[in-house]
């Protein structure tokens, strides 16, 4: 669906005195049906990449095509479901009026605007806020309005920039369900976030940007961790200290000196065999969870410049 070839973007001051490279030589293909995460430290180029994808900026060099077309004409024809990092909706608009406006602009058929708006207000918990001015909304409600307006149309290109910023845990969970429901073979979903856990749960792969370059592309999701064959650190908690532990996991390190919490390392398959052995020896396992996700360790390595 989207092809980036040697894409670079450099910001220059008006007189050319100050030059800031934002993206450098990105070559990449994004396909329909994918959920792609974009991670990176502040200033890595995430928002610039999104601006280029939506045709808000022109590349300094290289090319970017959406189904063979430049982004701007494509967006003007088909539209995109876009949640900006900073949601800017005129403060004097009411929530319902804002939704109606965006539904009209998103080309929702005239006879379906009310139905669509009502469904979105309900789905995003904004029905009781409909009469409020946008400027009166809390950060979380504004974020939900941003998400709702993004989904006003039925777009095949979805771009969500920091979608869970300001959402409480309940709505963060709801957001995950929304993204799962949005998945379909014709749709490309791009999520830029600092929340690596979020990306690991939702994305099929995650681009790690650092200083304008794609440092790594990491397969994400539970399946990716199992098939990756990477040794990761896990936290193992037992109901009580057990003598079988030293035999099953000889390299286990006690966490904070407590004999019931241990750090174990290894590939998932070997760790599972060890856990089975431990359980059969009568140990009570109360928790077993990754200390750091694979994406986090890849992110850390990419940003530090390892490997």
């Amino acid at each position, binding site marked *: 669906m989207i092809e980036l070839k040697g894409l670079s973007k450099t910001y220059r001051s008006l007189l050319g005195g100050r030059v800031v490279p934002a993206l450098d030589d990105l070559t990449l293909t994004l396909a329909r049906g994918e959920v792609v995460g974009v991670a990176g430290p502040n200033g890595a180029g995430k*928002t610039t990449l999104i*601006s280029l994808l939506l045709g*808000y900026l022109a590349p300094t060099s290289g090319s970017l095509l959406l189904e063979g077309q430049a982004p701007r004409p494509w967006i*003007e024809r088909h539209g995109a479901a876009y949640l900006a990092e900073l949601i800017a909706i005129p403060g004097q608009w009411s929530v319902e009026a804002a939704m109606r406006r965006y539904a*009209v602009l*998103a080309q929702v058929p005239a006879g379906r605007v009310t139905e669509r708006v009502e469904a979105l207000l309900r789905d995003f918990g904004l029905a009781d806020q409909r009469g409020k001015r946008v400027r009166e909304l809390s950060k979380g409600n504004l974020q939900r309005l941003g998400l709702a307006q993004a989904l006003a149309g039925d777009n095949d290109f979805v771009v969500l920039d920091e979608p869970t910023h300001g959402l409480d845990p309940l709505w963060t969970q709801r957001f995950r369900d929304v993204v799962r429901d949005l998945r379909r073979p014709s749709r490309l979903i791009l999520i830029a976030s600092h929340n690596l856990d979020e990306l690991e749960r939702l994305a099929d792969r995650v681009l790690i940007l650092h200083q304008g370059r794609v440092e790594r592309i990491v397969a994400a999701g539970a399946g990716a961790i199992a098939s990756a064959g990477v040794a990761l650190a896990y936290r193992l908690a037992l109901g009580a200290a057990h003598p079988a532990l030293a035999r099953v996991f000889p390299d286990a390190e006690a966490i904070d000196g407590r004999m019931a919490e241990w750090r174990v390392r290894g590939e998932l398959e070997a760790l599972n065999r060890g856990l089975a052995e431990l359980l059969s020896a009568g140990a009570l396992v109360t928790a077993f969870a990754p200390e750091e996700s694979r994406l986090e360790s890849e992110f850390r390595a990419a940003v530090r410049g390892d490997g």
Partner: protein
Amino acid sequence: MSLPTRYAGWMTRDLALGAGIPMAVLTVIASLVVSKVQVVGPVGDAARAACLVVLNWTAIGLALLATSGIVSADFAIGHQRTLFSKPVSPPLYYLQRWLIGGVGVLIGSAVVAQTIAARFEGTALGVGFILRVALLYLVIGGLVFLMSTLIRGDWVAVTALLAWHVVLGVAHSMGMERGPIGAVLEIILPPRHLLSLGDPLPTGIDLVQVLVYGTLVLFGALAMLRWRPLARGARQ
């Protein structure tokens, strides 16, 4: 690509509840002023001329109000990022907003013109009047539109240009030399002197000058909207 006509109702509402309020106040004040002008005796012609001056400046004021912040208000808060992720063309979106503003200017000007006509037993409204208002809006409203794609203080900049034009005109009428800079400014500044609503429609070279100026500023604004980055906004 076509105008987002289904959104025209919301744009009209924005105009009515936003710039429409000071526009209505200006129209009412101008109408009151012209309705109170003394029309008897030999001062009648001077009174009518004074009313036409009020009408001209009211129409200019209405054009400034109708187009003030037309583009820059959205860019100032970064709203264009949300707007133009929808299947909408920025030049056509703002062109439609500009045209709706023009209708507001026409209505306000017509009210004042009709008040003058009622006082002086004439008829103000007709195709000629609409064309004169359209030309004035093309030039003044078009210039604010262009400025609005470039800077935030769009109407302030155009008001300063108009004031400068008046100063130049006064200086010229007092016999001061225009000089090469004055000649250049004459071209850059809007040809307000050719846009009097009380005069017949400009013809010949004057009409060409007005049309070329108006077309350049309007298409300049549309070209800016086509080519300028839409990423600029609150974040930057």
